Structure formats: structure tokens, C-alpha cells
């Protein structure tokens, strides 16, 4: 941190918020095209129904639910990094937590779209929510799908609030450095924060409490998502390890996504390399190693118990996954999630940017495949061979998936330009305060 000072942090981070250049606009054009594809495909789906998706009978849950679980999973690392690592006083979180929290918020915003896309008649989406009505029709409170509505909404509100609370002192920094209308807007966002002792004291207390409230949510959301599957009695879905296994998988994919986003961010903006140190990236890589081992353990135990249970349906399904017609997706998952993080055990690879970036992308692919495997293979081969089926991807769902990446990236690109993407105040905490009398260059 030798060449990083209070002033250089301000400069570097505010520099990243300058009006965007050509690269930004070019990237945004690609992103908006992707989003446009998604919106077009969704429009087509509204007009023509679900025929454009691969969903069929018996596979009633397909790419949309896979995407939903995938994006909720991505949204986990942010809260883990900002809340859990804050509580355990892990210093490496400071430089990366703002961007990963933003990632969380946008990922959950993306995830929340998919149940709506999946339900088909999207104009009836409010049926998901319990509301008083004349006919006393209520949602099914016993259904894990409804628990999910609550879990995801709670998670989304808390992570947005936590995100904004963390931003308050940093908005104040931006306000102080800007003029005119911009100053007014950032002043409102900063809630008039002036940085007095009194304010800091209450602020830190509030942040700590928020961290404590957000921590259980890291576990609850993905546990409840896993119960969407585990509560049923379908082979391959009904298993007790699902909640912690999903949580570990979510952190696994979330940390990979943090790397996917931050490694380019670090390369693009000057000065970020001094702030987001390789050591912090390495810590993320270690989280990936750790959760990767847990995920591998869970895969193995699932297979073992499928054998040990003696249940023939369970056995048949776990035979179908590696040897059936969807085996490509299974082996892709095993390769990406179990094998590809292994090189990270070597320090040289863990600290090598291209290798890290490549592995993070492979893990993202692998985790998408994992959800696809869980969702589709179990439905394809349940109890009655007469009702077996298979899955083929259709263009509408592919375009919508591409659109979801566009939607997510669009928010992230906007975020980078209008908010400080690194936590100014907390980064300064780690430095020696500048002395007024001391002369520094």
C-alpha cells in the first residue's frame, strides 16, 4: 500500500466515475443488443406461449428455472463478502466488497425476472403474492415455491439496503468533489452525511447490525431455493444435503463471478491495481478452492447415498446422469466444478491473472450446468419409464438467457459510472492518516 494515499484513493475512484469513453459505449452497445435479443424473445413468448422454450411434458422446469437458481447463486458472494467477512474481520474484503455487493443486487434483480418469465402468463404474476381478496383465494403457504417468493424478496430488499448504507459515506465523498446538479443529487444520496464523529459512530453501529442481519440471509435464501427441489420426492431432488450444498455452490459461483467482474475492472481503470491487490484476488481464489471441495464432496455423497439407499429409482437416476443422453452436461459440470479449480492449489496459478480469469469463467459455466443437471435430469427420468422425456434447447430460451446476461451487465456498467465501485471510506481506514503538519509529497 506504499503508494496509496488518501488523496490517490479519492482520485483513482473518482476517475473511474468520469464520463464514459468509447470503450464503454461500444461495450454498452453489445450489452444492449444482448438485452434487446432477450426482450424480443420474451415478447415472442408472450405472443406465442411457451412453445419457444424447451419445456415439455414431463420436463416442466427447464432453462428458466436453471437461470433463476444460477443468478440467485451469483447473488450470494456479495453478501458473504460484505457481511460475513465483515463479521469475521477478514481484511481482504475491503477492496472488493462494494463491487461484489453491486453484483449481488443486480444478480438478484436478474434472478427475480425468471420466475416471471417461467410462469408463462406473466400478466398474472401478482398471483404469487398473498393479497386480501374478495374470494378469499390464498397462495399455498405450504409450497416451497411461495417460501421462495418471500426469501428472494427479503434477500433483495436487505441486500439493496445494505448496499446503500455502505455507500453513504462514499456518496458524500463524491458530493464533496463535484459541483452543481451532480452535487445536489449525490448530496441527497449521501443523506447529508458530513463525517462527524457522532455520525461515524452511529453509522458503524448500524453497519455492524446490518451485517448481522444479512448473515443468516446468506444461508436462508439458497437453502429455500434448494427446498424447491428437496421438498419433493423426485429422485435426485429429495436429499437432505441440498441446503448446505446449494449454499456452498452459490458461494462458489458467486466468488467466481466476482473474479470474472473484478479482474477486468482492475485492468481497465488506472490505479485500481494498487487498491485491488493480487492478494485479495488470491483470497477469492482460495474461497473458490474451498467451496469447490465442498461441492465435490456433495456430488460424491449424493452418488454414494444413491447407491446406499437401495432405492431403485434413486440408483437409476444417478446412473442416468453420467450415462444417459444428457451425460455431456454432467461431465461438463464435473470438469468445470471439480477439476478446473484444482490448478488453483498451486500458488503460481492462483496469482496469474489470465489463468484466474479462465478458471472463474469455467466455474460459472460449471455451476450453470450443475443447476441444469439437477433441474432437467431428475424430471427427465422420474419413476415411470412411460413418462420419461428429454430436453432440447430452443431459440427463445437461449435468447432470453443471453438477454439476462445483457440485463445484468447493463446494470453493472451503469453502476461503475455512477457509484464509487470501491469502498472509499473503508480503504482509507487501512491507511495511515495524513498528518496536517507532516510534509508529504
Amino acid at each position, binding site marked *: 500500500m506504499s503508494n496509496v494515499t488518501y488523496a490517490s484513493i479519492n482520485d483513482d475512484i473518482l476517475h473511474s466515475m468520469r464520463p464514459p469513453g468509447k470503450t464503454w459505449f461500444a461495450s454498452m452497445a453489445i450489452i444492449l443488443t444482448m438485452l434487446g435479443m432477450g426482450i424480443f424473445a420474451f415478447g415472442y413468448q408472450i405472443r406465442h406461449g411457451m412453445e419457444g422454450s424447451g419445456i415439455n411434458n414431463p420436463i416442466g422446469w427447464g432453462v428458466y428455472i436453471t437461470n433463476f437458481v444460477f443468478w440467485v447463486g451469483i447473488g450470494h458472494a456479495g453478501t458473504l463478502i460484505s457481511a460475513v467477512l465483515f463479521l469475521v474481520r477478514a481484511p481482504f474484503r475491503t477492496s472488493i466488497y462494494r463491487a461484489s455487493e453491486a453484483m449481488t443486487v443486480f444478480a438478484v434483480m436478474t434472478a427475480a425476472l425468471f420466475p416471471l418469465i417461467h410462469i408463462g402468463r406473466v400478466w398474472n404474476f401478482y398471483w404469487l403474492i398473498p393479497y386480501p381478496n374478495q374470494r378469499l383465494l390464498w397462495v399455498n403457504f405450504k409450497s416451497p415455491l411461495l417460501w421462495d417468493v418471500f426469501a428472494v424478496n427479503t434477500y433483495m430488499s436487505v441486500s439493496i439496503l445494505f448496499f446503500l448504507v455502505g455507500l453513504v459515506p462514499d456518496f458524500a465523498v463524491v458530493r464533496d468533489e463535484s459541483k452543481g446538479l451532480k452535487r445536489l443529487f449525490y448530496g441527497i444520496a449521501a443523506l447529508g452525511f458530513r463525517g462527524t464523529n457522532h455520525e461515524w459512530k452511529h453509522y458503524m453501529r448500524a453497519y455492524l447490525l446490518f451485517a448481522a442481519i444479512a448473515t443468516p440471509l446468506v444461508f436462508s435464501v439458497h437453502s429455500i431455493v434448494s427446498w424447491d427441489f428437496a421438498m419433493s420426492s423426485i429422485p435426485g431432488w429429495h436429499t437432505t444435503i441440498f441446503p*448446505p450444498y446449494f449454499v456452498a455452490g452459490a458461494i462458489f459461483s458467486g466468488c467466481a463471478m466476482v473474479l470474472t467482474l473484478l479482474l477486468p475492472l482492475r485492468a481497465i481503470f488506472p490505479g485500481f491495481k494498487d487498491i485491488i491487490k493480487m492478494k485479495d484476488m488470491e483470497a477469492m481464489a482460495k474461497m473458490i478452492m474451498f467451496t469447490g471441495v465442498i461441492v465435490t464432496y456433495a456430488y460424491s455423497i449424493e452418488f454414494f447415498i444413491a447407491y446406499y439407499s437401495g432405492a*431403485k429409482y434413486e440408483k437409476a437416476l444417478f446412473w442416468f446422469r453420467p450415462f444417459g443422453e444428457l451425460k455431456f452436461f454432467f461431465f461438463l459440470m464435473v470438469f468445470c466444478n471439480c477439476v478446473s479449480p484444482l490448478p488453483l492449489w498451486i500458488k503460481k496459478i492462483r496469482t496469474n491473472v489470465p489463468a484466474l480469469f479462465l478458471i472463474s469463467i469455467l466455474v460459472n459455466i460449471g455451476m450453470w450446468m450443475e443447476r441444469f443437471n439437477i433441474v432437467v435430469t431428475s424430471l427427465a427420468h422420474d419413476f415411470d419409464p412411460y413418462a420419461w422425456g428429454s430436453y432440447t434447447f430452443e431459440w427463445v430460451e437461449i435468447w432470453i438467457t443471453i438477454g439476462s446476461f445483457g440485463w445484468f451487465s447493463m446494470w453493472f456498467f451503469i453502476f461503475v459510472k455512477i457509484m464509487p465501485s470501491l469502498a472509499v471510506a473503508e480503504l482509507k481506514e487501512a491507511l495511515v492518516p495524513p498528518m496536517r503538519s507532516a510534509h508529504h509529497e
Partner: protein
Amino acid sequence: MTRHEEMKVILENSTFKLSGGLRGVLVLFVAVGIVGFVVGALGSQPHLAWEALLVNTVFFGGIGFGALTFSVIWQITDANWGRPYKRFAEALAAFTPVAFGLYLVLFFGAHHFFQWMDHDKVIHSKAGWLNFPFFIERNIGLFVLVLILSWIYIKNSLRPDIGLAKKLANFSNGFADRLVSNYGTQEEEEILANKKNIRMAPLVAIGWACLSSLIAFDWVMSIDQEWYSTMFGVQYLVASLIGGMACLNLISGVVWKKFKLNGYISVTRHHDTSKFIFALCLLWTYMIFSQVLVIWYGNIPEETPYLILRMQSHEWGWMFWLLLVMLFLIPFFGLMSRTACNTPWFSRLISIDILVGLWLEKYFLVVPSIQENMADAAAAAGAEVHGLPGFQYNLFDFSITLGVLGAFVLCFLWFLSRVPALPISDKRLFSEGHH
């Protein structure tokens, strides 16, 4: 004071000899345990003695490895707060070879636990896993492997400390001397040991994760050969971690005063152990809740009988709620406030509650299944069975628990009296004032 002088003071304060009186009491405990076990095993109801031994072996063996896991975690991560507890964690693991010995003994009583040892009763589709020769092979094989890994890890961790202790205070005893043969310069040894253990630590952690699953599946879950739960191994692993941390919390309160470790073990460090227990108890509850909810909601006949027996039967149902109180409600509300975590007598009281709760948890997982197996066997023999005996504590439970507890504490003290009680060569060990 220079660092070396400080370390010398620590060494002088913390070196102790196991006093005759305490040793006598502990040896007496062990003797009571052995007598209780022999009398029980040769008596008219041998299963009572065997099941008590199984419960205690699973419980204390788990704590030994669980505590070692924390030493491993502190080695892997850069967390500074746990450094003063590292050696105590390793000392708790001194029991693990004894636990291995007890498992070897338990092989001879395995027919009291496992229905599947009978060729006519084993579920045929599971016979590939549930057969006795393979059972012995895999358990011995993995256990020995993990013991070796742990020993190499502990040896590397001890070596530079003993070397430094020798230099500073002429620290010497048979056990310690053997560990520092061919000792190079202090600096080299420290670097080398750290380098070796950075590699060993993940191996030990992975080894214990596998072994804990194997123990949980083989020695506990397979007593009821029909039932299965993918989470069961993780539940045992988490319980072992809670046990290890609860022991460290108890030790922390004692050694703090006794070894005059003020500054090294301080209110904040003790607070951290309490918080860790709090978090782990929540994790345990999460594991239990996830299993119970999935099984209850799924309502599949292979899975539910295990829970019905443990939650709804009048013989055992009450214990489930007792465990929930002991392992969730009491630590949750008890350790929620900062003052509670900070106060050694209070947090230690809760640690004791947790350790008793964890012991009961093992009892609760093992014994009802054995009773059910015996009831099945009696019914098959034509006897009329009216319910299960339920929780009937007996002399064997007490004597054997006392015996294994005695052995556990003896191992701990034996080990601790032969090595420096704090990792004095570790640069990350510092007193609060220096932070």
C-alpha cells in the same frame, strides 16, 4: 522486554508436571471405566456396555479431531486471534490414537450394533458396502491414514517451538527431545516447518472431513441399516467442531489464570471462542433443521421411521426437544450478549451445557436404533414386544463415560506437559498490548 524474554516468561509460567493427585484420580477414572466395561461385556446384557463404549468413542474421538481442525484452520488462514489456542487444540488431539484403539476394540462388539452383520438380515442391495470385512478394512485404512497425516502435521508444528524452548529455557523431556533430532538453526527450522505445514494442513482437514463422514455413516447411521441421510456426515463433522471449540473455551478460562497468560489469552480472545461456539451451534441447528424439514415434508417410508422414533415416540421423543434446548436455545440466547461471551464463568457454563448436549446427541443417534434392532430380533424370535426400553441410564453408561473421559483428559495433560503450551516460535502470536 524482547520477544525472546517474553516467550521465556511464558514458558516458565506454563511448564507444569502432571501432579500425582490429579493423575491418580484420572487413572482411577480409567480403571473404573475398564472394570465397568469388562463387567458389562461379560454380564447378562452385554449390549449396554458396548453401546456406551461406542457413544463415548464417537463423542471423544470427534472432539479430538474437531479441535485439531481448528489448529489446521489457523495454519491455513491468517487469523491471528486463535494463535494462543493452537497448542491446546493439538493437545486435545492426543486422544485420537486412543480413540483408534477403542474402535479396534469395538470391532469385537460390532454384532451388538449392526443388524447387517447377519447374512439373513442384511438388505441385499446394500451388502456391497455393509459387509464386515470391507467395513474393517475401510475404517482401519482411512483412520490410520488420517492419524499419520495428523501426526506429521503436529510434529511439524511442535518442532520449532520445542527448539526455541530448548534454547530459551533448557526445555527437555524424552518426548520433546525425540522431536528435535538433527535440529538446524532456529530460523531455518521455522521456515521449513511452516512450509511443510502449509501443505499438510489442507490434507489433514480433507482427511478428517472424509473420516468423519465414514464414522458417521458406518458407526452411527448403519445401525439402522434402512435409514440414510446425505447430510449425516456433515452433521457429525459440525458437532465435532463445536465440541472442539467448547473444550478450547473451557481450557481458555483455566489456563488464562493458571499460566498467567494475560495479554495472550485476553477477554477479547475468550470472547472470540464464545462467538465461534455461538456460530457453530447455529450451524448445527441449521443442519438438523434441514434434515428434519426435508424428511418430514418428503414423507417417504424409508426415511420417516427414524424421525418418528426420535421425535414422536414417548420413549425418545422428549430427548429431541431437550437437545434442541441444550444445543440451540441455551447457546443462542445465552451467548447472544457481549457480556455473556466475555464472562469466563458464564460462557464456560454454556460450554459444559453444549458438551453434555453433544454427548446426549451421540447417545440419541446410537441407542434408539440399537433398541429397535433388538426389539426386531426379539419379535422375530417370537417374543411379544411392547415398545422400547427408552432412556434407561445405567451403571455402564456412567462408568464407561468416566473411563473414556479420564483417558481423554490424561492424554491432553500428558501431551501438554511435554511441549510448550503456546506456539512460541509463531511470529503471529502476540499479546494484546502489542497489537
